[in-house]
């Protein structure tokens, strides 16, 4: 594979009509519990998809299967034309997959090795994937730090000296280090306070515009979904209950569950008691 330095030039040659990620009839069963059932979707290059649903609806399981942390019970996942439904057998295959799909997790406190600074971390990722010399790696580390908005001191500091938002920026830089085509954001801004959340979302939006990366946004925060994605899939108990353009799904929900999710966001005139009644009616 010549994805060694896959810059914009090679990207342009990729067929824009081909989905960058394709999921077919994905199913995951834990014991007797069906976590995800018959999930199918395509993600086009540069487009972003939101998967929303309550806790336990199976959205994180989908994310873990796509990035290879969980093995699907059945169904196929194809990223950049490469099947990734089964665990990688060889190191080279594993690394190639790492250059296609990356993930940023929710908790910024456990997602960084406490003994490694951001610069060391990115340097290690670059060493595993490419054979750049030290000067090149240093340059890329500096570039990535700038992309995610970390200064020289922050990128060289250990995680314990960084705030949650700064750690999440390091995690985003780590995910970008392999120059992936798809970035999964698994509740990546949920643990941050609102102002930091907005900053990180801006960083993510800029990155998408600059790099043509596709996002899969796993979230329960409908405001974030609206800001970052074009398409939305709504999951309930492992099954897709509604899908469509993000604006349409959020403004004019068709499925009762989506209506309920939408109505659960507190706003003017919002009454807890009325929500309780609706949830009871749903169940």
């Amino acid at each position, binding site marked *: 594979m010549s994805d060694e330095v896959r810059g914009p030039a090679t990207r342009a040659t990729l067929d824009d009509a081909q989905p960058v990620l394709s999921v077919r009839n994905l199913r995951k069963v834990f014991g007797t519990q069906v976590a995800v059932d018959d999930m199918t979707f395509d993600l086009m290059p540069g487009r972003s998809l939101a998967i929303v649903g309550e806790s336990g609806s199976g959205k994180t399981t989908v994310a873990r299967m796509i990035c290879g942390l969980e093995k699907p019970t059945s169904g196929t996942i194809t990223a950049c034309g490469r099947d990734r439904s089964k665990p990688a057998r060889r190191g080279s295959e*594993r*690394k190639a997959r790492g250059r296609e799909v*990356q*993930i940023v997790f929710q908790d910024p406190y456990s*997602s960084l*090795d*406490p003994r490694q600074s951001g610069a060391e971390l990115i340097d290690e990722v670059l060493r595993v994937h490419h054979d750049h010399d030290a000067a090149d790696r240093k340059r890329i580390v500096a570039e990535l730090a700038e992309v995610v908005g970390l200064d020289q001191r922050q990128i060289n*500091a250990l995680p*314990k000296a960084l705030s949650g938002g700064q750690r999440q920026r390091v995690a985003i830089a780590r995910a970008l280090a*392999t120059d992936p085509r798809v970035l999964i954001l698994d509740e990546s801004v949920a643990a941050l306070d609102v102002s930091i959340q907005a900053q990180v979302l801006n960083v993510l939006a800029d990155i998408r515009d600059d790099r043509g990366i596709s996002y899969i946004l796993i979230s329960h925060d409908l405001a974030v979904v609206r800001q970052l994605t074009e398409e939305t899939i709504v999951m309930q108990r492992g099954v897709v209950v509604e899908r469509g353009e993000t604006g349409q799904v959020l403004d004019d929900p068709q499925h009762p569950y989506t209506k309920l999710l939408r109505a659960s966001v507190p706003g003017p005139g919002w009454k807890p008691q009325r929500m309780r009644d609706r949830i009871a009616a749903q169940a």
Partner: protein
Amino acid sequence: MSIEIVDPVAEAEEASPDRRTLRRLGWVGWISIGVIVLALLMAVLGPILAPFDPNQGDLSFANVGPFGQHLLGFDGQGRDVLSRLLVGARTAIFGAAAVALVAVVIGTTLALVTAWFGGKVDATASVVIDVVFAFPGILLAILAAAVFGPSLFSAGLALAIAYSPYVARVLRGAALKERAMTYIAALEVQGFGAWRLCARHLLPNISSLIVAQGTILFGFAMVDLAAISFLGLGVQTPQADWGVMVSEGKTSLLQGYPLVSISAVLCIVAVVAAVSFLGDRLDTSSKAVNR
């Protein structure tokens, strides 16, 4: 009164975590280091430092107290006690260190393999660990002495095998906890191999616990090896060894001359205590620095 203001960011930047761990040792830690350095010097240079031949006895000096150059007097066979202590340090300290090291290596490997692969590997290894757990170290050492003949090697090997389940048990829990951290998952998604993840990320993050286990086991090993030598199944007389000296000293003790046993026992206690204190201090201060 002045208040010391510690800027955590500045502190985090100016020194590596290991450096700062050392800085927090306190005086108990430093005294322990002193004792350990002294013991190591004895173990390495003992035979050179010994003023007299440790095995050359003169029965006319049996159980004679300290005088002149004989700072600790003579044992029941008229041998210089100080010389025997200096020479005996080597088997006592290096023997115990080797036992602790082998036990930690076996135990850590088991812990990492079980925590990493989980499932059937974990279940199988846990059964093996439980079986070995059932044998007390001394019993296994006696068994080894019966099969391979009494020697420091067979006793040490038996102890190392008997100790390794303790290490595996404790470290497995820590390794499982670390394995579940999302930074490991993130690096797996990066395509990092199991070997790199274990050696470069998982292992360093449980290293303080490994060191703590090693120091605890060193203490156990030193006492158990001395006990085995005392039983006559470890280091063989007349070779000087602290455990052997405690054993040989018992005849003098019964004759009202306790100095031989007491000096050897004090050496054992001092080294065991120093290593345990240091292990404890390293553990607590590295926790304070890293979390």
